[in-house]
């Protein structure tokens, strides 16, 4: 598709448009943070089953590394991998370069500094919290003044980094909005999602990190916190992820999206219903009940919208179903979509007050979060990397087998973890409701938590296969397998 487009004389060439080096740099950064995040997850998982060998070490405290786990995956892995991929997709879709290449590199460096400093703040902040000047400031202004994590879930980024991160997000929006603004003619679906995502991400970050810290306390801050947790997934990760699917799936299948009408329903349905649901994270809190009902209803509504999107993509796959088995990136994408459908179906049930009684506060929710963050968006990004990296390095993958291992270990490990934590959640909910002593629930969770350790190790092993494969491909090792033709066709 793109080859014929860029060959035309009226359009700039791929080399003019795309800065391939920055994409590789983003991917290296993304995979580095993913490794950190998974190590942190492993540490916390080991703590829960009493196998933590590093217990009692202040700088390796599982409480602090739990926040490294979530922040590194959201801002280190997903954001970096998305930004890298955007540098490929946006110029090729709009036929215009990003606003400025030097700005791109500035954003790249700045973003790594932001994520790195967030980690430094979370790890070292609490150790140095007890400074007289900090306490004086907190007393004078009645503000939290945490050197380390802020008390906002997914928004733990210390308050002193927030303004820099906001500036970074604004620059990202400008850098990619300029080529979108310059493009002529009707916009393709992908660009609807991207454009909205640039606006939403900035607004969401500003709302969630500034309001509960400086403007409101108590119940209304809870409503904002719920909205932030929710919008971060729904208005930053989701639109970028689906935008990329609308771009890569038709290219890889060499056929157009099945229904343009359903694309419209999917986008506008998501845009309208998704941000209305924040409060469903805090059902049965003192937040007014009529607001809780509203959040529940719009959540169920958005799951219907999701169904139309998934149907549209399976219509696109159509009779090319065999590609699912032969084309690895396509397999990643459609596995992610199946997981997405499970996530959303689960969500329509668990958001009801009936389910909430039992499963709120339990590992059910943790399983749900892993299913969406790893099972959907990470798998999609793995698929995109599997497709793009041979193009960026201009050589086939070192080992197709290792690519397969990466897929199977990641998706199978994730699926086991999801089932395991979901079941654990049901057990925990009933242990608590039965008014047994608290120990009953933590002791009863042990089999599930032990299973989770091994499921996580499986996913980690998949990542190690990918990293080794990438290393060998990068340094130009000869493909380990003879069927070079097959390798090329797999990723083509």
């Amino acid at each position, binding site marked *: 598709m793109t080859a014929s487009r860029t060959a035309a004389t009226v359009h700039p060439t791929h080399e003019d448009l795309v800065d391939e080096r920055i994409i590789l740099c983003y991917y290296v950064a993304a995979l580095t943070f993913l490794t950190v995040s998974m190590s942190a997850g492993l540490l916390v998982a080991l703590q829960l089953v009493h196998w933590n060998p590093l217990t009692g070490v202040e700088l390796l405290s599982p409480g602090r590394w739990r926040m490294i786990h979530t922040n590194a995956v959201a801002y280190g892995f997903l954001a970096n991998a998305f930004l890298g991929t955007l540098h490929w997709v946006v110029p090729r879709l709009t036929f215009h370069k990003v606003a400025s290449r030097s700005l791109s590199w500035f954003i790249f460096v700045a973003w790594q500094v932001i994520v790195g400093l967030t980690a430094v703040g979370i790890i070292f902040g609490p150790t140095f919290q007890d400074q007289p000047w900090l306490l004086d400031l907190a007393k004078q202004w009645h503000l939290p003044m945490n050197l380390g994590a802020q008390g906002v879930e997914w928004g733990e980024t210390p308050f002193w980094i927030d303004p820099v991160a906001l500036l970074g997000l604004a620059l990202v929006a400008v850098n990619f909005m300029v080529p979108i603004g310059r493009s002529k003619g009707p916009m393709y679906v992908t660009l609807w999602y991207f454009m909205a995502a640039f606006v939403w991400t900035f607004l969401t970050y500003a709302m969630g990190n500034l309001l509960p810290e400086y403007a409101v306390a108590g119940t209304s801050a809870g409503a904002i916190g719920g909205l932030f947790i929710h919008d971060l997934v729904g208005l930053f990760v989701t639109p970028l992820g689906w935008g990329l699917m609308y771009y890569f799936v038709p290219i890889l299948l060499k056929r157009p999206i099945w229904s343009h009408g359903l694309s419209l329903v999917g986008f506008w349905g998501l845009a309208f219903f998704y*941000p209305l649901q924040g409060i469903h994270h805090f059902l049965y809190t003192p937040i007014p009940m009529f607001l809780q009902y509203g959040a529940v209803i719009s959540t169920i509504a958005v799951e219907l919208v999701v169904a139309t999107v998934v149907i549209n993509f399976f219509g696109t796959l159509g009779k090319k179903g065999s590609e699912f088995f032969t084309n690895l990136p396509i397999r990643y994408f459609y596995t992610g979509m199946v997981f997405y459908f499970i996530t959303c179906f689960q969500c329509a049930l668990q958001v009801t007050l009936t389910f909430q*009684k039992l499963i709120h506060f339990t590992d059910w929710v943790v399983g749900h979060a892993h299913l969406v963050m790893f099972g959907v968006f990470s798998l999609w990004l793995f698929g995109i990397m599997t497709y793009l990296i041979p193009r960026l390095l201009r050589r086939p993958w070192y080992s197709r087998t290792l690519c397969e291992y990466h897929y199977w270990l990641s998706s199978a490990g994730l699926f086991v973890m999801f089932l395991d934590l979901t079941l654990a959640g049901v057990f925990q909910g009933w242990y608590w409701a039965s008014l047994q002593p608290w120990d009953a629930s*933590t002791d009863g969770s042990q089999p599930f938590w032990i299973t989770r350790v091994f499921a996580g190790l499986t996913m980690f092993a998949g990542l190690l296969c990918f990293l080794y494969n990438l290393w060998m491909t990068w340094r130009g090792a000869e493909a380990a397998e003879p069927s070079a033709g097959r390798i090329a066709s797999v990723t083509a």
Partner: protein
Amino acid sequence: MFESKSGIFFIAGIGFFLLAFLGNGAVPMLMYKDRHEQTAEEVVNQKVLNQFADLAERYPESFQAAFGEVSAEKCAEALRLGRQIYVGEGCWHCHSQFVRPVSNESRRYGPVSKSEEYDNELQRPVLFGTRRVGPDLSREGGRRGNDWHAVHFYRPRTVSNNSPMPEYPWFFDGAPDKPNRRGLAVITYVQWLGSWLDEYPYYEELAEVKSE
């Protein structure tokens, strides 16, 4: 409109975001805007002050070095620092701070949480929490003694069988009877939680639980 740049930028991007913010964020903010947000000094009550004095009596040298004399002002300082530690160490990721009206929670923890309990500086950002690996802590104050908390922070499994909670030896100068400033502050904070209520059940005393 549905596929144009301005439609997507202004209606979907800014419009729908603001609509949702109005409905989900601004409504509760406006509903509660006239309520007074208490400062840390204002939430110090006699119960937490007694606990603070108990810490001074129990660990005189540590307390002298960390806070000097017992006073309401010093107690507010301990609450502020204690909360900062509680957030920074990620306690709120495993301990919620709200009691729901379902799932027998009011029998285990005490009265269902009310909005006015959260109108204070120490709930900025609010610490409802989303996960309970350990129990809810919003009625924890006064349930257990300061010495229990000290040992529990130092090595949870000493007093709580098979607890998966991490150890916090950096709240102490080498032994559980020598809490440092951070340790004393975080214990004061935990003893404050729920101290504003007149009373609440002590669920281990329930007949069903006792009969085990």
